[in-house]
């Protein structure tokens, strides 16, 4: 017998009401946790994918589209850029690393990325099975792609034009899977990787090429195109030189991943703020409901409280009892809400994976969840304050004389 068991007994005695309050609070908390988990993971993944990439050079158009298409592979490219000019930029003294990307095709929604091995190294990718691509039309696939499409080493598949599944299929040149990557949590998990030449080969029919294995030598430099160039600066000074150099001297444009992702988050942020406001309204109404429940219960319990005083309870004990009841209610609601938030996030993550978007998981814990639990506890205690104060002020003799 202690304050916890007494509080629990009272909560059980009006279980329907208790359940309702717990549910209301849990809903609000779950919404907050869902938001925290998804934004934290999106933020982390976006940062991870853009790590070490200081600048993206692509065709003129929306800079955000350049970033979305070249770093996150979530959008179609703005167009292609001429090979010759990218070579000049690659040799610029401000550039430490330049990774070419040739995009345009996909396999069942997974982007086919023509690039160099430097792209794999940039993300520290490890090959789980097989090897890296060497010849044209050899493909290395990300862990998610392998799992979702059930592709094994040696399997052949046809790429199709565009990022959707409705594009024109390149029937004549099937890819062969020669390697499968370990899961890395980066964008590599959900793309198909091959040499730039493989991507050129897909469109070789336009240029009358016979032997696609030697395509790099058969195409004239003017006919070669990249989609984007991922740049790492040689020094911080490069940030002042290179974007201007690119934007002034070519048909290309330079887009900053840091700036564009920040802009993207500020746009998403409006939606997140609205949802967060909604969640806080839920939590507030849960607090109000707990308050009303405790306040009403106080009326039924005035004799119980007076009796406890006759048994030796101090006013402070009754105050604590009521506060504890609010706290207990809130903590149960808070814990359930956090569990529910994780479950919701996992469900959402599953749906996103099916839709071939960025993956989000509920099986992770972030530190701000402790604050959410503290928020729930705070709401419980505040809701119990006035009832607790009334319990503290119980007039024993007066109450008992009337009953």
């Amino acid at each position, binding site marked *: 017998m202690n304050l916890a068991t007494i509080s629990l*007994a009272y909560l*059980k005695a009006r279980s329907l009401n208790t359940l309702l309050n717990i549910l209301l609070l849990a809903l609000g908390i779950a919404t907050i946790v869902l938001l925290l988990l998804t934004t934290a993971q999106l933020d982390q993944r976006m940062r991870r994918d853009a790590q070490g990439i200081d600048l993206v050079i692509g065709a003129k158009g929306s800079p955000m589209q350049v970033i979305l298409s070249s770093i996150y592979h979530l959008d179609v490219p703005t167009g292609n850029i001429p090979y010759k000019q990218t070579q000049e930029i690659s040799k610029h003294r401000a550039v430490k690393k330049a990774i070419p990307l040739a995009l345009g095709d996909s396999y069942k929604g997974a982007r086919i990325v023509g690039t160099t091995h430097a792209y794999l190294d940039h993300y520290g990718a490890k090959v789980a099975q097989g090897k890296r691509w060497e010849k044209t039309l050899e493909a290395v696939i990300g862990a998610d792609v392998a799992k979702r499409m059930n592709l094994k080493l040696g399997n052949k598949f046809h790429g199709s034009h565009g990022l959707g599944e409705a594009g024109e299929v390149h029937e004549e040149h099937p890819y062969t899977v020669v390697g499968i990557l370990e899961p890395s949590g980066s964008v590599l998990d959900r793309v198909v990787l091959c040499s730039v030449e493989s991507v050129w080969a897909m469109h070789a029919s336009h240029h009358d090429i016979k032997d696609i294995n030697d395509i790099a030598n058969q195409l004239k430099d003017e006919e070669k195109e990249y989609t984007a160039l991922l740049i790492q600066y040689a020094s911080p000074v490069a940030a002042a030189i290179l974007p201007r150099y690119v934007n002034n001297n070519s048909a290309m444009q330079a887009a900053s991943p840091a700036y564009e992702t920040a802009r993207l988050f500020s746009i998403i942020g409006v939606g997140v703020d609205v949802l967060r406001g909604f969640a806080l309204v839920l939590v507030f109404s849960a607090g109000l409901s707990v308050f009303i429940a405790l306040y009403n219960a106080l009326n039924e319990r005035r004799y119980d409280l007076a*009796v406890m005083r*006759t*048994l*030796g*309870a*101090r006013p402070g004990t009754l105050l604590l009892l009521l506060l504890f009841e609010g706290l207990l209610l809130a903590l149960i609601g808070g814990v359930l809400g956090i569990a529910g938030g994780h479950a919701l996030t996992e469900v959402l993550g599953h749906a996103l994976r099916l839709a071939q978007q960025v993956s989000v998981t509920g099986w992770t814990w972030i530190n701000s969840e402790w604050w959410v639990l503290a928020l729930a506890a705070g709401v419980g205690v505040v809701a119990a304050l006035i009832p607790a104060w009334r319990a503290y002020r119980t007039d024993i003799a007066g109450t008992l004389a009337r009953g």
Partner: protein
Amino acid sequence: MFSLHDVQHAYDGEPVLNVPEWQAQQGALWLMLGPSGSGKTTLLHVLAGILRPASGQVAVADQDISALSPSAMDRFRGKNIGIVLQRLHLIDSLTVMNNLLLAQYMAGETQNPARAREVLASLDLADKANARPHELSHGQAQRVAVARAVVNKPKLLLADEPTSNLDDERCVQVLDLLLNQAKACGATLVIATHDQRIKSRVPNQYALKGAA
């Protein structure tokens, strides 16, 4: 024992209690008699230390309770005074057993389930330990209320109109119960009543004459 000296109380300037002198030996059995409105309940509350009289001295078990701080009074009451209220007021959210443990907990005593079971057994309630108060008959509930009042072995046991609304047979049973339990823990017993049937059973009687 307890002693009252020149105790007076008033509500809104209206005198409701006037006790010039009342001394009781430890273990003595008393009836407090008086018509309705003569201040029986008020005096019981004064003896229980849940109401401070406007004036006068009150001592219970050698302790001048007028001198105690409010929180010391609460502790003292929990340990030394048992009260059986007219309407019983068992706590319905708790089992019978927990109603008894609650008395130990609130008094700041070590919780002793063995003692609680012993009291329940002596009142023929051993099989009701896990029942909830609303599942009990009125007679059983009254015995639980008595059990809760004596579980801490009080020095003073107070009962407010315990026999009103009871038929003659039950009236005798309840009276026996209170007398036996008071003797068992050596408590001074005060029964506030206007029930004429029990007058002959209790040796000491104090008649309240009203405040006027």
